[in-house]
């Protein structure tokens, strides 16, 4: 997000925007037409665009001539504009994950189905199928007495079979109610383990980014030692992020093959798309990280331009933050 050269002698163009956009289009076109080849080409072009972008940023030394502009006026007076920019960008990320959770909670709160449940309970009472003396509310409570999901058998008893026939089952006898991922994951500790390790890995990787930043900002260190330290901490972050993705894919594989938990159900759709979207954020972070590591390798970071690592860190911490919420919401409960 650097600013380019801003002297009065002309404007530096960049091929990066048009290449990256073209790549995005090819990627989406390939995905739409279910063509792996075109999708891969699109991804390559997109990443090529990003690297074109970063190539222009490699000599960035933190000076105003190289684009580090200061903000003035309220509210961000005196701050680097890029810092304000990354926080503003995180606003959008908050809304992204907020939308994911809003949709997911709509399913989990079950308001849609619970209303039908009350409806069916009343119907059972009206047609004398329910036990004498039962009210719609008592049947409703009975149906929901289990920890995770309404138990079909209990509802069947309470409503004289009405719920089972018409509500929980479609004509093809597929259970309508969707079992959520947490039921399978928490049932067996070995299934939970990858998720738990992932949580630790992400928190640890957040910590290593902080250590890299501290090393880069440390003026007391010998430049050679400093460069090595920065590179190693960032490489550690890259490894932890990669571990995260591998474990996640392993765990998906496990859920799909051993528990038959796939995107063919609503809960499965939510689980895979939400955790997948988080995984994409991690992947994007890792792509960015390769540039940071390369620049550390050639000794490009010092206390003047280390704020770039800080801004990358803000993004990376946010990904961690999202995981901190996703983990209990999708894996534990």
């Amino acid at each position, binding site marked *: 997000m650097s600013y380019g050269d*801003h002297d009065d002698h002309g404007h530096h163009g960049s091929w990066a925007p048009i290449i990256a956009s073209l790549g995005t289009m090819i990627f989406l076109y390939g995905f739409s*037409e279910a063509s792996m080849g075109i999708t891969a080409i699109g991804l390559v072009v997109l990443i090529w665009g990003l690297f074109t972008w970063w190539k222009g940023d490699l000599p960035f030394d933190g000076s105003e001539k190289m684009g580090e502009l200061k903000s003035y006026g309220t509210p961000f007076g005196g701050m680097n504009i890029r810092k304000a920019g990354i926080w503003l960008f995180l606003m959008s990320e908050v809304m992204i994950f907020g939308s994911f959770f809003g949709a997911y909670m709509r399913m989990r709160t079950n308001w849609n189905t619970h209303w039908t449940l009350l409806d069916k309970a009343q119907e059972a009472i009206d047609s004398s199928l329910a036990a004498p003396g039962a009210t719609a509310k008592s049947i409703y409570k009975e149906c929901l007495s289990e920890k995770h999901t309404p138990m079909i058998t209990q509802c069947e008893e309470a409503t004289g079979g009405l719920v089972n026939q018409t509500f929980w089952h479609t004509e093809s006898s597929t259970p309508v109610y969707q079992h959520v991922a947490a039921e399978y994951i928490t049932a067996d500790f070995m299934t939970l383990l990858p998720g738990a390790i992932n949580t630790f890995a992400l928190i640890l990787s957040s910590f290593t980014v902080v250590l890299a930043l501290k090393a880069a900002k440390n003026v007391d260190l010998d430049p050679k030692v400093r460069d090595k330290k920065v590179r190693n901490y960032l490489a550690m972050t890259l490894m932890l992020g990669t571990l995260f993705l591998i474990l996640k894919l392993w765990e998906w594989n496990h859920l799909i093959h051993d528990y038959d938990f796939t*995107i063919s159900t609503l809960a*499965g759709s939510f689980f895979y798309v939400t955790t997948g979207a988080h995984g994409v954020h991690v992947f994007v972070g890792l792509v960015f990280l390769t540039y940071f590591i390369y620049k550390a390798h050639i000794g490009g970071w010092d206390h003047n331009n280390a704020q770039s690592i800080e801004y990358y860190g803000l993004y990376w911490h946010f990904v961690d933050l999202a995981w901190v919420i996703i983990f209990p919401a999708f894996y534990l409960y």
Partner: protein
Amino acid sequence: MVKGSELMNKNKIRVISLLFVIFIALAATPQMTSYPTGVNRANGTTGCACHSGGAGTTTVIVDGMPDSFVGGTSYELNITISNPNIAGAELSSNMGGFRLFATDGTFSAGENYTDLVQVMDGGITHTESGNDMRSWVVVWTAPDNEGQIVDFTVHGNAVNGNAVGNIPADGNSGDKWSTFQASIPGAAALGGGAILIEQAEPYEVAIAAITFGIALFSLMLVYVFYRNNPDGFNLNGLTEWLKKWMTTTDHKEVGTLYFVFSFLFLLIGGIFAMLFRLQLAVADNDFLTQDQYNSFFTLHGTTMIFLAAMPMIAAFANWIIPLQIGAKDLAFPRVNAMGFWMLAFSSVLLYGGVMSGEGADITWTMYAPFSNSLGEKGASAGTTLFVAGIIMLGISSTLSGVNFIATVMTMRAPGVTWMKMPLFTWSIFVANAMLYLSLPALIIGTVYLYFDRTIGTHFYDAAVGGDPILWAHLFWYFGHPEVYVVILPAFGVVSEVLSTSAKRSIFGYKSMVYALAGIGVLGFIVWGHHMLTSGMDPTFRLIMMLTTMLVAIPTGVKIFNWLATLWGGSLVFKTHTLWALGFLVTFTMGGISGMFFPVAGLDTHFHDTYFVVAHFHYVLVGGTLFGMFSAIYYWYPKAVGRKLDEKLGLLHFIITFIAMNGTFWPMHQLGIEGMPRRYHTYSVDSWSELNSFITMSALIMGFAQLILTWNIIRSYKYGEKCGKDPWGGWSLEWTTTSPPPTPSFHEIPTQEDDNLHHVESTGGGMFSRMWKGVEPK
């Protein structure tokens, strides 16, 4: 400079024309009538031999005639006669008769009409018992020779029935007959130049129009390049020049790209609109098939919102925001360029389906569960690409959103404090903040939809517990802020234009800012009014009703502030002023019709009728588009250094204003009568007249935009040259040269207090000064 008296005359002409326009538009539009019977084809002079009643006012209609016949095929023809003056007999049932001849082919009776019609003398006519009615069905079997043209003649007689009771003397008196003639070519006779216009494949028309547009656009590019430097023209220079545009990160150049792109798509969206207006011109029309109609109005909506309105707003935001706040450029120029290119490439995805004849047909609202269904009953194949395009648009708007918000928050020059910031900047800031915070809901919603269509998830599939209403929620959580996103910048433009044209600072600046911010916040808690009929929580419905009505308050504050600005000022009638005044009229009407919808009871009636279409076209065309036109005339001199032609501008305004009202005002009535939107045709004949009127007005409005196109192209080289500040504006963009240098300011400027800039307005009330055409010093 023009002398005072000439100016007075000019202003007087403008005032009179403006009043004339408003008078005509308001007085004529709702009362326009057409033929009482719809399409009245012909009244003839030679009639039936059996009746001696005179030729007269009877109407004969033959339905079901093909445009061209195929040899050996049978066509069912529906013959109807009517005469408003002859009600038919009270006692008997003698009501009318007909006789139909054709130069070739054979006739037979239609189903259920075997006793009522008979073949006679190479034609067909009614039987004795068949004269008790005024409508018959016959079958015409076409001859095998397709190379000929068959002429039809039908005589129809409206009988008053006074011959009943054996009073021969009265027999034929008072009966009125007339004749209808038609020629139908055989399929083979259509070769050469005889192709009927209805037979042109609408997809081909659309693609041809778009291709033509792109070709024209490319030619224009080369021409513009040539005119830039006629002496040094060579094609190597062209690639350099194109490279400059493709890699540019300068806010002004990206703004120009945005503008050209949006203008191109404004015209393309207009072509779509004109095509389906032709389809809707008369009842039971078959110019477009259902599928074509569906994808055309889908692309019209999406194009106009995402590829025309928002990019045009982005164009002015790009151009003007850094100039107004005194910044050298935007905060993140490369991100800005990427926002544009994402938009440009997304249009390829959006239109990808149309080129293969499988355009998306899911409306711009993309409602599940239709949009996520595949196969026979689902949305067409192009929908997947379309949804991918929408995701890309989301990325584009997020990138440009973060840029504008960051620029306004961090790069304001000294003196441009929050409460002295020009209102256009304020409106762009609020609009982008809204867009930025609401877009994620759309992106997530479309990602769900995209996966439903590609990898087979089941978010919106009710069969496995999915939830179609979730889509409506996510879409409208974005969608309602979105409509404010496209209208707020127009508010900003009108504030700038009116205060400059009235030669005074805007009335109630602070209340304007609070109103903008108020709309910004309220806009997020009103989305439920789009879903009042979807079966929401009744409590939620009530909340949404109340909050929606609340939005009228800040909007009303703005309208009254604009009026008060005019009241104390001394108005100069430039073209941009006319557009701003037109905006005031039409936007207010659109706003008022909008206040019917939050009332859940009324909304149940109006939901999905043309009343809704009328409302949002009044605010989007009469609001956003008029505002943007005003901006074009207002800031064109700043961008180019030459003014747009005022005479052409006046012509453009008058035609567009009348035609716009003619197009959308009658839709209110159609909506109240219950004409549903999004249907490819209708069978209620009484709607035909208003619809044909709408279609004519829409065509006029569409072609009037060519005036603007010509004006923009012509004035680029031949317009009147202007200095820094042609209109007497006060904000910082007028302190730099026209066109501005790169970077836009060499020294960061300081903004003065706007109130110091303006001279006192001359005496007299607004209307008296408008009438006298007084120009303040």
